[in-house]
């Protein structure tokens, strides 16, 4: 089983593998930050005082405050670390939700066909055609009343954006896989529709889901930051969020204070880059049409003068 999981990995060469490895390293760095945030960050994300003493306002990076402090008396380094946790939690939740909704819907829609299929395709296409940021803003607006401005609300507004992508891919793969002989064979042994979908189609139609998932995760980081930047995202008292910090840093930048903007900005750029590299690397390895298998060098047997001719002929 492990062998099969690693097979695409082994089949890649040079650039594709390099891309995948770099992406994984960057992403893992952020995951470590997110998981160990309470230990890595010197202060809490909304901590303004140490031992009852307020932090300096807009202090430049120093030994005490590595990335400096912000106009809200926050430690920028701690905010960046905690921000990784927020970003990854939101993105993981939204990808998870959209996979959990999009994949089964696509599978059923493609398998059942008919009017169900046409209706779902119509709705999903409409959602897909909508500008993503606008859609996210609308939904975070709608969800704010019900769920507040927290992590869950942000994750759900992102979920809506990405469902159509899983739906489309899974539905289209299902439509073509439905006609395949192995599905007919499953019918021939008496399998129920639910069993055909679960045991025969599912495993074969979800193969591009990891690729879409990572690429969507990268996209979601950007969208989440944009929401925060525009003030529709996670509220500052709920969690640390890079986009919100960038927004706050706008005024600082004009007065020559660079640290409040640079570090959250770099974090966003790095995490997006890392996830995109993983996605592209996976795409190269999972997608057979793009994949070029490594061609092993042909090893010629040592040439023994007396028998070479005979061997050459029999081979």
């Amino acid at each position: 089983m492990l062998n099969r999981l690693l097979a695409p990995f082994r089949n890649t060469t040079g650039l594709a593998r390099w891309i995948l490895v770099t992406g994984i390293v960057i992403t893992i760095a952020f995951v470590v930050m997110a998981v160990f945030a309470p230990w890595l960050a010197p202060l809490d994300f909304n901590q303004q005082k140490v031992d009852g003493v307020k932090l300096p306002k807009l202090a430049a990076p120093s030994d005490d405050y590595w990335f400096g402090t912000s106009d809200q008396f926050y430690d920028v380094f701690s905010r960046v670390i905690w921000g990784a946790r927020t970003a990854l939690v939101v993105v993981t939740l939204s990808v998870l939700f959209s996979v959990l909704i999009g994949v089964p819907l696509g599978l059923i829609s493609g398998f059942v066909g008919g009017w169900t299929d046409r209706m779902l395709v119509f709705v999903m296409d409409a959602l897909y055609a909508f500008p993503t940021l606008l859609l996210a803003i609308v939904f975070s607006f709608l969800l704010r009343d019900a769920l507040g401005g927290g992590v869950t609300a942000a994750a759900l507004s992102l979920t809506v954006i990405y469902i159509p992508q899983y739906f489309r891919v899974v539905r289209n793969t299902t439509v073509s896989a439905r006609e395949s002989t192995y599905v007919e064979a499953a019918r021939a042994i008496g399998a129920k529709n639910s069993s055909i979908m679960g045991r025969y189609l599912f495993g074969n139609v979800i193969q591009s889901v990891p690729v879409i998932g990572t690429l969507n995760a990268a996209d979601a980081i950007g969208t989440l930051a944009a929401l925060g930047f525009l003030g529709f995202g996670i509220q500052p008292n709920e969690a640390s969020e890079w986009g919100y910090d960038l927004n706050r840093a706008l005024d600082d930048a004009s007065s020559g204070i660079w640290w409040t903007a640079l570090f959250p900005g770099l974090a966003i750029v790095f995490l997006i880059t890392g996830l995109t590299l993983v996605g592209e690397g996976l795409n190269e390895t999972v997608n057979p049409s793009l994949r070029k298998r490594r061609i092993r060098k042909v090893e010629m047997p040592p040439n023994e003068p007396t028998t070479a001719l005979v061997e050459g002929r029999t081979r």
Partner: protein
Amino acid sequence: MQTKRDVTATGESLVDIRDLEVHFELRGGMLKRLLGMDTGTVKAVDGVNISLKRGEVLGLVGESGSGKTTLGRAMLGLARSTKGSITYHERGGEGQTRERVVSQLKGADLRSLRTDLQMVFQDPNAALNPSMTIEAAVGHPLKIHGIAKGEDLRPRVAAALERVGLAPAEQFMSKYPADLSGGQKQRAVIARAIILDPEVLVADEPVSMLDMSVRAKILQLMVDLKKDLGLTYVYITHDLASAKFFCDRIAIMYLGRVVEIGPTEEIFADPKHPYTKALLKAIPEPDPNKMVPRDLPRGEIPDAAKPPLGCSFHPRCPEAVAECGWESRDLRVLLEEHWTRQETTSYEEEQALVGSLDRLDDPQKTVTLGSGADSARVRGLLDRIRQENPSEPLWSGVDEISETGDGVEVRFHQGFDPELRPSGGVEVACVLHPKPVTVEPFRPE
């Protein structure tokens, strides 16, 4: 599993196929359907009567597109019949049989039928789920029908795998289809089919996608399985040579119909239908010195959505006679063939004379060529074509050629769509059979 049944063909019907039709609606574009335009139907199976005897091997033989697969699928209820019936005489206790009309079964009833009727598919590379291990794939039928689960599954899967020659089974259970060779995959497909201990196995060209070297082995495996498990086979193939080796009885299919059916020896010793004769001629001769031309009859297999009138084999039939159903489309083919032999200038001249051939595309028994002014020249052209090859069977089907005010009218004889009729030891669908008993008139020298 492995309950041995009586394997000799008993003459007792196991599956009765009556007037079976499986027509597929051709899906035109959305617009076409909205406008209610005729999108056509493919008559994949078009009136088939066969009764499958317990213990026999029945061969379904025909070129690709003749409806063999569809007939096989219909027997399992995988293709919906649009008319007629398929009745399976299920063996109950104490020699009783229970009739189950496959063509009317639905849902759970239809699924439960699959413990008795199973299928082996043409392409072993496509018939196994690529993301399922061999153990899971072969064991799944038992799970589906609640026959075995959990602990019991593994030994039964192992037994089935070893029965089809995938031994030691341990070595294959955890493999995925991609790790197996074509022959091994087909063995796994067969294992999956026999694990439910079915009565009937429909084998759809089970060896045609395999390497020459493994074909004989798989066929031998099927012979052995039949003996050991008391199976009844429907063996689908386009290759009469393997049918001769394997089948007790052969049904020759053409465009959704059975055109000849009878015992294998009879079919090989004295083929009656011209199509059967042509197929027999196409069997590769093992002795290269006796190489005979092994072309199938002239022309292509016609479009099953627009079959020829009369006997659907008539456009390709070397023995066709007046009543075989000659019609406008045959005339078009004749003219076009004539023009392929002409110089460009005379071709252009002649084509201008006859006018567009498109109006011959709708099957008609009376057609008008050319225009009123040129009728004499059109007639002359037809006469010349006839001179080129007077033995062309189409001319026998022409009733009358007359010059009318609008051009030359060609009228064809009334055609017949021959039914299967007993002739000798077989049944044939051809107007030439059975041979009419003619009394030679006495002629004094």
